[in-house]
């Protein structure tokens, strides 16, 4: 089995975190985004992974080399000279995707969900058509491109972009499985798979939809990264509660969904949760309140501080009686002094903050 992951560019939407690490390596619930996807793909029997990238940072090559060894798979970088959109990369990687007749997965690197690759494959093989789109249901379909199927069927009839009237609430989840023949539909030029390839496939009655169970989130920007973490942790609480901090054994757990790396140290009198992810070697002082936040590796959260709805990047520190809120994002090695209030600030790496940031802004 083969898979292509659409990584794309520099991940500017997830800055300041992506100023330090390429987006696929930014830890989502203590594990690089791309590792979540590779693990799920390996489980479904994938042995060949293609990363479609606009650039190839050294750090990514070396990390993925490790994954190749760990999982016994082949990872290939397919580097675009110009951005090829969402379909072009398939044509660029033709030699790998079309090396045999087996279908291949395509996924957007920003999407998190309970990847149902095995089920998708079984479904795809059963209907025998060229492609299957994973679909997720949303509350407000008017904001998305909606999939319209034949009645009582999974066969896609058409797509309606940002429908004014309700035509359905299934949207494209950014994860697909295709037969190699799809590559014949794609020229090697910037092409949108959603706008140019799918409508043609639907017209040929070659495209089915498969419903995703559970959560789904595009985590390409900080607000959604936090929301996606919440969804992932909620899902973990149902499926693998043993990976989360137990509210029975840990007084500090409040409301559940708290992921604490085994090397993290937590002080007395803290109240943590719901929806908190704490990375390796993190030190949390006494009387700290954390809620709906992501604390990355080597961070120090000093006593009596308050962090909510924020991301604290690697090697950063938050001073005593400081308060972070409103989707604040601290880049690598950012230091917040004692008693400081930070609201919705995106702070670039290696900064020290000694005055309140009361309104959302970027601190260069």
């Amino acid at each position: 089995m083969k898979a292509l992951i659409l990584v794309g560019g520099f991940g500017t939407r997830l800055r300041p975190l992506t100023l330090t690490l390429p987006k696929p390596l930014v830890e989502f619930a203590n594990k690089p985004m791309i590792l979540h996807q590779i693990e799920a793909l390996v489980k479904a029997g994938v042995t060949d992974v293609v990363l479609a990238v606009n650039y190839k940072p050294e750090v990514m090559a070396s990390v993925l080399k490790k994954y190749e060894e760990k999982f016994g798979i082949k990872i290939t970088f397919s580097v675009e000279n110009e951005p090829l959109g969402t379909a072009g990369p398939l044509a660029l990687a033709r030699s790998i995707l079309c090396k045999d007749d087996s279908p291949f997965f395509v996924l957007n690197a920003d999407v998190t969900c309970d990847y149902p690759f095995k089920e998708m494959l079984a479904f795809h093989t059963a209907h025998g058509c060229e492609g299957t789109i994973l679909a997720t249901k949303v509350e407000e379909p008017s904001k998305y491109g909606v999939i319209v199927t034949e009645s009582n069927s999974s066969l896609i009839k058409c797509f309606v972009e940002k429908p004014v009237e309700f035509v359905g609430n299934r949207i494209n989840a950014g994860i697909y499985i295709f037969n190699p023949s799809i590559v014949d539909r794609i020229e090697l030029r910037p092409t949108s798979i959603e706008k140019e390839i799918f409508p043609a496939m639907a017209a040929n009655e070659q495209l089915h939809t498969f419903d995703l169970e559970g959560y789904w989130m595009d985590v390409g920007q900080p607000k959604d990264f936090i929301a996606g973490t919440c969804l992932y942790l909620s899902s973990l609480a149902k499926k693998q509660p043993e990976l989360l901090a137990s509210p029975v054994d840990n007084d500090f757990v409040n409301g559940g969904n708290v992921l604490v790396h085994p090397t993290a140290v937590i002080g007395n009198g803290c109240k943590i949760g719901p929806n908190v992810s704490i990375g390796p070697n993190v030190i949390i002082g006494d009387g700290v309140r954390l809620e709906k936040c992501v604390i990355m590796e080597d961070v120090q959260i000093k006593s009596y501080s308050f962090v909510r709805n924020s991301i604290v990047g690697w090697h950063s520190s938050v001073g005593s009686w400081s308060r972070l809120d409103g989707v604040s994002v601290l880049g690598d090695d950012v230091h917040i002094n004692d008693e400081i209030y930070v609201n919705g600030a995106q702070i670039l790496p290696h900064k020290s903050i000694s005055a309140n940031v009361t309104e959302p802004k970027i601190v260069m």
Partner: protein
Amino acid sequence: MNKAVILVGGPSRATRFRPLSMNLPQPLFPVGGKPIIWHQVNALSKTPGITEIILLGLFEAHVFKSFLDQCTLEFPKIEFKYLREFALLGTAGGLFHFRDQIMHGNTKNIFLLYTDICSAFPLTELLEKHEQSKSIGTIMVKKVPRELASNYGCVVADSEKKMALHYVEKPETYVSDLVSTGVYVFTTEIFKLMSEIIEERSKELSNLPKKAFHDNFGNIHDSLRLEQDVLQKMASEHNLGIYITDTFWRQIKSAASAVPANAEYLMQTQKSNPSMLAKQNPEGPTIIGSVYIHPSASVDPTAKIGPNVSIHSRVSIGAGARIKNSIILDNVVVRDYAAVINAIVGWNGKIGRWARVEGNPCNDLNDHEYVTSAGVKINSICILGQETIVKNEVFVRSSIVLPYKEISSDKHNEILM
């Protein structure tokens, strides 16, 4: 012998001191651990020849009774009296009305102080200057930054900086950077001058057609403004001496300005009476700078307090709490890990765990910037009126909260009615 009159205003005054004046008359509000007016009484008690201190205002007499009873015990050599003005007579009208009582007993000099100021009150120096100048009155003035001068009464001094040449109240344009501190000393001659002013004015009035003015201005000759009517005349007649002080001084007009006043008095207490202030000890909380903690208050040893904090009676401060540049009034409970910074927490208030109450530091510039009902312009100390409850984890920032409100979501730059 010398006497002093402190002008305490009335209940309908001091609206800028809301919401704190809704519970307590402004003169009795505590800064530096003592009522605002106590600092004036204390300074007067150290001034030579003071035998009597009179509070003059529109409040009902009982308002100051217990305060004056305490003063009588604390300052046994001085007689205390409250004189109630029966009507709005202007800042000097009340003084004139009670002139016989004030002059009674061979009074030589009369100190006159407004209550809404804080200062080191160098009254002895003021008196010396006054006696040297042999003028009817001497005004204590302070040099302020040029751009702030128009907020005050401005005094133009002669070349030797001894006598005032001109007095003008809150001029629109720049006149002088020497401003009135609201502290004066007069000889009893001032009452003669006041009589003259009133006489002149009634003469002017009687020359006008009576019908046109009588209804509206029936009592106008009783109303007398100290600044515009009396001081201006004194200055123009070269009868107003000046004493320039370089000690601390600021107005306590808005409720927010109580915080810097508190800080000034605490720093002064650090020098004059350090035993009144909290000291760092191994079993106690971390103390930074000047901090007053009432003996009946309890503060957890893991809390960090200061600088410039007053914690009043029966207050309870929880574990890991942080209090900085704030006044915490009687019976307030600050629960664990809460932070109170640049704020006043009113009587019986409750601040929840991990809650935060924070204002911007008050300075000369933003204290004059008034707040709008839309709440956008509030840019100062955070003030919680009596019995405000701030729920756990809630942040109240740069807001003013009227009494008896419960706050369960974050508030920024708002007035909460």
